[in-house]
C-alpha cells in the first residue's frame, strides 16, 4: 500500500475505453509525472484522482482511503490548472483564501495562511490585484498559492507551465522543484514535455493510447525503456532505432548493421542473453549521446565499439554538434562535442558506447530484457 494507489483503474466514455487498467502506486513525498503525447489520457487520469471525473472501474486510494465517489473538496487535494483558473472577479488574496472560506475556516486563520503562502511565493505585493492585471508568471504563482494554502495531501498539476514562454518555463520548473524539496509534499504532475518529466520527477509514468507504457524512475525510463515508444519519446534528440541482425562470434552476440553503402558494421553487445537471437532480426536502439568521436568516448564504459561511416549532415548547436548519418537504412543522429572535426560528405571514425545500447523485439516492440 502506497500513499497514493491507482489500482486497476479504467475510464470509459460511453462504449469507448480511454484509459485501460492503470496501475500506479507512489509513496508519500514522491513527485510522479504523467507524461505522454496529447490525447493519451493524462488529464483524464489526473481528473479522476481529483474527483472531477468518475472512475469507471477499479479503485483510487489516498492514504488507504478509497476515493471512489468522494467529492473533490473532501479528498484533501489541491489542483493547479493549465489555464491557472483564477477567479477573475476576485483579488489575488480572495482567490487564495476562497477554498478556506468554503471550508468554513475563520477569517483570522485565513488571513494568516494567506500571508504565509504569499511570503513563500513572493507575491505579497500582488494580494490586492485582480488576476487580469497580472503577468503569466505571476498568475502561475497565484495558482500555486491557491493550491498550497490548503495544505493538501496531494498536489495535482495539469500542464502548469505550458502557457508560459520558454525562459519563464525553465525558471518556474526550477521553482516547482525547489518547492517540492522544501515542502516534501506528494505531487502528481501532468506534462507532454519529456524534459519537464525527467527534471522534476522522482517517478515517471509514460502513457500512450490510454495505457501506462512504463512506470519507473527517470533513470530506469531513460536507460531501460520498456518498449520502442518509451525509448523514442523520452530523450531529445530521440533515441535512434534501426533494424539490425544478431550474429555470434566466439560465442559473443554482435549487432550487424548496414552502413551508408550497405556494407555491414559489427557492434558487440554487452548483453549476453542476446545470443539466443543468433541469426534473427532485432531493432537496435542507440542514444545520440552514445555515438561520439574517439576522444570523447565514455572512459568508464567497458564496451566502446569503433565504426566508420559517412557523415550526411552536420548541425552545430553551440555546445554540441548534431551529426546525421545513414545507418541500418535510417537517419541516425550522433551528438558530438562542438569541436569535433566533422564535415558533411566525409568518412568519420565514430565510437559507439555499446554498453548503453538496447535491443527490441521487432514483433512486439518490447525491449529484450537482459
Amino acid at each position, binding site marked *: 500500500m502506497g500513499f497514493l494507489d491507482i489500482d486497476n483503474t479504467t475510464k470509459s466514455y460511453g462504449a469507448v475505453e480511454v484509459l485501460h487498467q492503470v496501475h500506479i502506486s507512489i509513496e508519500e513525498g514522491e513527485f510522479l509525472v504523467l507524461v505522454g503525447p496529447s490525447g493519451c489520457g493524462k488529464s483524464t487520469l489526473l*481528473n479522476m484522482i*481529483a474527483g472531477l471525473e468518475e472512475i469507471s472501474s477499479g479503485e483510487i486510494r489516498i492514504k488507504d482511503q478509497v476515493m471512489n465517489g468522494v467529492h*473533490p*473538496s473532501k479528498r484533501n487535494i489541491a489542483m493547479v490548472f493549465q489555464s491557472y*483558473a483564477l477567479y477573475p472577479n476576485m483579488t489575488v488574496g480572495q482567490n487564495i483564501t476562497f*477554498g478556506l472560506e468554503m471550508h468554513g475556516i475563520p477569517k483570522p486563520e485565513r488571513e494568516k495562511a494567506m500571508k504565509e503562502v504569499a511570503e513563500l511565493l513572493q507575491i505579497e505585493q500582488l494580494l490586492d490585484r485582480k488576476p487580469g492585471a497580472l503577468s503569466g508568471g505571476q498568475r502561475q504563482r497565484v495558482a500555486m498559492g*491557491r493550491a498550497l494554502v490548503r495544505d493538501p495531501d496531494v498536489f495535482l498539476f495539469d500542464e502548469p507551465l505550458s502557457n508560459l514562454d520558454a525562459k519563464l518555463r525553465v525558471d518556474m520548473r526550477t521553482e516547482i522543484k525547489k518547492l517540492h524539496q522544501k515542502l516534501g509534499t506528494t505531487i502528481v504532475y501532468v506534462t507532454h514535455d519529456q524534459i519537464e518529466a525527467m527534471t522534476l520527477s522522482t517517478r515517471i509514468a509514460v502513457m500512450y493510447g490510454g495505457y501506462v507504457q512504463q512506470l519507473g524512475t527517470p533513470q530506469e525510463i531513460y536507460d531501460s525503456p520498456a518498449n520502442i515508444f518509451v525509448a523514442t519519446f523520452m530523450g531529445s534528440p530521440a533515441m535512434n532505432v534501426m533494424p539490425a541482425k544478431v550474429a555470434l562470434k566466439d560465442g559473443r552476440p554482435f549487432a550487424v548493421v548496414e552502413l551508408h553503402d550497405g556494407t555491414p558494421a559489427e557492434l558487440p553487445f554487452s548483453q549476453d542473453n542476446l545470443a539466443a537471437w543468433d541469426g534473427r532480426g532485432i531493432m537496435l536502439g542507440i542514444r545520440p549521446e552514445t555515438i561520439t568521436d574517439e576522444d570523447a568516448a565514455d572512459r568508464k564504459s567497458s564496451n566502446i565499439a569503433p565504426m566508420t561511416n559517412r557523415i550526411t549532415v552536420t548541425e552545430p548547436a553551440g555546445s554540441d554538434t548534431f551529426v546525421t548519418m545513414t545507418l541500418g537504412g535510417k537517419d541516425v543522429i550522433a551528438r558530438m562535442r562542438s569541436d569535433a572535426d566533422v564535415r558533411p560528405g566525409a568518412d568519420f571514425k565514430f565510437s559507439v558506447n555499446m554498453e548503453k545500447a538496447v535491443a527490441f523485439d521487432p514483433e512486439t516492440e518490447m525491449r529484450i530484457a537482459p
Partner: protein
Amino acid sequence: MSLATQDSAIRTGRVTRTLIYLVLLLFALFYMLPLYVMVVNSVKPLDEITGGGMMNLPQVFTLEPWAKAWSSAQIGVDPTGLKPYFWNSIKMVVPAVIVSTVLGALNGYVLTKWRFRGDTILFGLMLFACFIPFQIVLIPMARMLGLMGMAGTTWGLVLVHVVYGIGFTTLYFRNYYAVFPTELIRAAQIDGAGFFQIFWRILLPSSGPIAVVSIIWQFTNIWNDFLFGASFAGADSQPMTVALNNLVQSSTGVKEYNVHFAGAILAALPTLLVYIVAGRYFVRGLMAGSVKG
C-alpha cells in the same frame, strides 16, 4: 476587428464617405420624424392640431395634455389617466424581468457546466419556445391561468411573460457560459464551493454584459406587449399598452389628439430610458455572446 475597420476606412475616399453620411442622415431624419410629430403635438392645445398644422411647432406651449394623459383622461369608463396602469406595468415588468433573467442564467449554467444526458435536446426544445407565435398559446394559457386561479391578476401576467421569456434568456446565458472556462468551475469544486455558491460567487459576477442584454430584451418585450395584456389582464391589472389603446379608443366626446400623443410618449418612455442608460452595454453584450459563442 479594429484592423478591418481601419483598413476599410483608408480605402473609402472622401466623396464616398460624404455620400454615405448624407444617406445615413436622411434615414435618421426619416426615422426621427414620427417622434418629432409626437413631441410637437403633445405640447399644443387641441385646436392647433385640428386646425391642420400637424408639422408646425406649437404657437402656444402647454403641458396640459401630459398632465391630462397621466392623471385625468378617460380610460375606458373611468377618468383615471394612465397613472394606475403605469404602475400596473411596473408591477408586472419588474418581477417578470428579474425572474426570467435569473432562471435563464440558472438554465445556462446547468446546460453548460452541469451537463447531463439529453441536455442538447432539452436546449433545442427551449429554443423552440422562442419561435412559438403568441396566438397559438393564448387559449391554452388562459385555461391554465384559470385552473391555477391566476386569471386576471398581475401575477398571472408575470407567469406568462416569464414562461415566454425563458427561451430567450436561456439562449443568451447558455451561449455566454459556453465559453466561460470550465476549469474555473472545477477549481471552485475542488475549493469546496457547491452548486449555488459557484453560481453566485464565480459565474454571476462575470455575467454583467449578458445580464444587461437579457434585462433590456425582456424589459422591452414585456413592457411593449399588448396581446397578453389584453387577453389575460383583469380590470385592475391592465398594463400601460392596453390602457393606451383604451385611451385612444374612448369614444366619448372629441378625440383629444394632443392627449393621445402625450400618452403614447408616456407609454414608450421607460423602454427609451432603458436603451439610453444601458444601450451601449446591450451592443457590447450581444457581441461578447455572438463572437465567442
